């Protein structure tokens, strides 16, 4: 960097970088290519023809696993996680801009959750809900509600324990992004709004929200994609039905046809679609904001 011309070091580093990117994307590309394997083809190269055969096989279901149901469960959970992540992160981000007593303890807890081995969080949530089940059953027994007791299964579920488990993973990312946003945020706009007589809600709705909206879309993307691919925290906290990544993990040992690559391609496409939508939406919001400022 000292010289004007590209040094030998630059080219060596550029080569290293290119090799890293190839290492990063190469295997994923192989999966996508192999999912279009012909009906005669197997898990490895060479390709025997080109077809959508394994996608059809996937749609028919893999063994006992209902892929469609798992896909809908993961989509539903991902969207719910996304909504909660956006709302809770934005609220907490606003809170941290004010004098928040105990804010450092809260921040420390959030960061601790981010670096805590997932299996421990997962085990803890699983235990919590099992103990809750025990308590509920005891209570039903004590009140003599045998009918309810017989039908009672477990409190573990997608929208209870699994949702909570996912939030302990997505919210730290959401909060850190909010910090990054507000560190660059100029409070003068709000002050101006306040001086013009805006209520705190009006100030937030018409001044702060439009300004932070592009980044908030990013938080939503984090929320959805992190949940969509999450395994470790869900594993002990899911109950009797599985999300798509958990099914996929189970299938790695049993399925020996390229349909598993087809499934991989499908989930990758969903991830990339969400990322693309988020980037597009964020650009759109930013452009609209800019256009408003220009007029």
């Amino acid at each position, binding site marked *: *960097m000292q010289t004007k011309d590209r040094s030998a070091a*630059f080219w060596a*580093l550029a080569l290293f*970088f290119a090799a*890293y*990117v190839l*290492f*990063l994307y190469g*295997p*994923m590309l*192989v*999966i996508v290519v192999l999912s279009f394997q012909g009906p005669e083809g197997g*898990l*490895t*190269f060479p390709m025997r023809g080109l077809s959508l055969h394994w996608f059809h096989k996937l749609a028919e279901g893999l063994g006992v696993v209902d892929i469609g149901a798992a896909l809908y469960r993961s989509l539903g959970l991902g969207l719910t996680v996304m909504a909660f992540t956006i*709302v*809770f992160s934005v609220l*907490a981000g606003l809170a941290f*801009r*004010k004098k*928040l*007593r105990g804010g450092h303890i*809260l921040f420390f*807890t*959030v960061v601790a*959750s981010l*670096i*805590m*081995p997932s*299996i*421990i969080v997962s*085990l*803890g*949530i*699983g*235990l*919590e809900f*099992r*103990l809750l089940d025990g308590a509920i059953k005891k209570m039903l027994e004590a009140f003599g509600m045998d009918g309810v007791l017989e039908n009672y299964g477990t409190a573990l579920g997608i929208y209870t324990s699994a949702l909570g488990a996912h*939030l*302990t993973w997505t*919210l730290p990312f959401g909060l850190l992004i909010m*910090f990054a946003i507000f560190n660059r*945020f*100029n*409070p003068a706009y*709000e002050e101006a709004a306040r001086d013009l007589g805006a209520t705190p809600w009006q100030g937030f709705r018409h001044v702060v929200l439009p300004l932070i909206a592009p980044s908030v879309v990013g938080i939503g993307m984090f929320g959805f994609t*992190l949940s969509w*691919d999450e*395994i*470790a925290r869900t*594993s002990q906290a899911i109950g009797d039905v599985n999300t798509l990544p958990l099914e996929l*993990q189970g299938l*790695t040992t049993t399925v020996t046809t390229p349909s598993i*690559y087809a499934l*991989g391609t499908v*989930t*990758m496409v969903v*991830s990339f679609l969400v*990322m693309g939508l988020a980037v597009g939406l964020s650009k759109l919001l930013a452009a609209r904001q800019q256009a408003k400022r220009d007029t």
Partner: protein
Amino acid sequence: MSAPSAASSLPAASAPGRSIAAWWQALPLTAVFAVFFLIPLALVLMVSFWDYNQYEMLPGFTLKNYVAIFDGCLSRNEAGDMCVTVKTYLSTFKFSVLVWLLTLVIGFTVSYFLAFHVRSSGVQVVLFVLCTIPFWTSNVIRMIAWVPLLGRNGLVNDALATMGLVDKPIEWLLFSDFSVVLAFVHLFTTFMIVPIFNSMMRIDRSLIEAASDSGATAWQTLWNVIIPLCRTGIIIGSIFVITIVMGDFVTIGVMGGQQIASVGKIIQVQTSYLQFPLAAANAVVLLSLVLMIIWALTRMVDIRKEL
């Protein structure tokens, strides 16, 4: 008021409002971490002292789970073997150290290239994003992506055979220590790149000019200026990578062909046999070790100040 300095982690108290209102806003997030993080951790600690039978957990206070974990660990047996727990931890440590070293070297080099050798900031952003995109896709898929490459009839073996370098396929490429480390590096180098790149971008470029004006070689600048100044990023990245590998059971499971033991795997297997108190005791031991590692690492840097 101008924007708060980048050194402070928490946005400065600049917005209107009182503390009480702030707490209402922080409440939902706080509640989530109380119910799904702090209470579960406390329960893990509590249950680790409980007894259990084949059907249920039995509340009480016993140390037998911990005794069971360290059974036979204080003295080596006649054959000179170590107990299962120590062996498992040693194997997990081995993976942690290997993956940590590799991700650190790769992550640092990639960040260094992006931060100091790519001149246009637009290109910089594009290349950085390129490195982080795979983080948003499924870990399992990125793992099984190695199967067609490393398998007995995979691309690597095919290529080696075609070139006449091997007579029969190399067996240790897949479902081995090698494939586990490879998958870890593939999955988690991002966790090194992001914080290291972040701290490198904050380095005042005039410091580097000053170093070169004072006659420092590129290596001296790297060693005496850049590395000390991105210490925070290095340590944050290291914490991520080490805690992930220490607690992992998915990667070691899939890439080790379900043959390699890890602490996380033990916990997972014990829960599948409903031995929750034993699993909880294992989790407490794992957590104490991870906390000790993190504590040692954070001695070197104040994370809250520099995030």
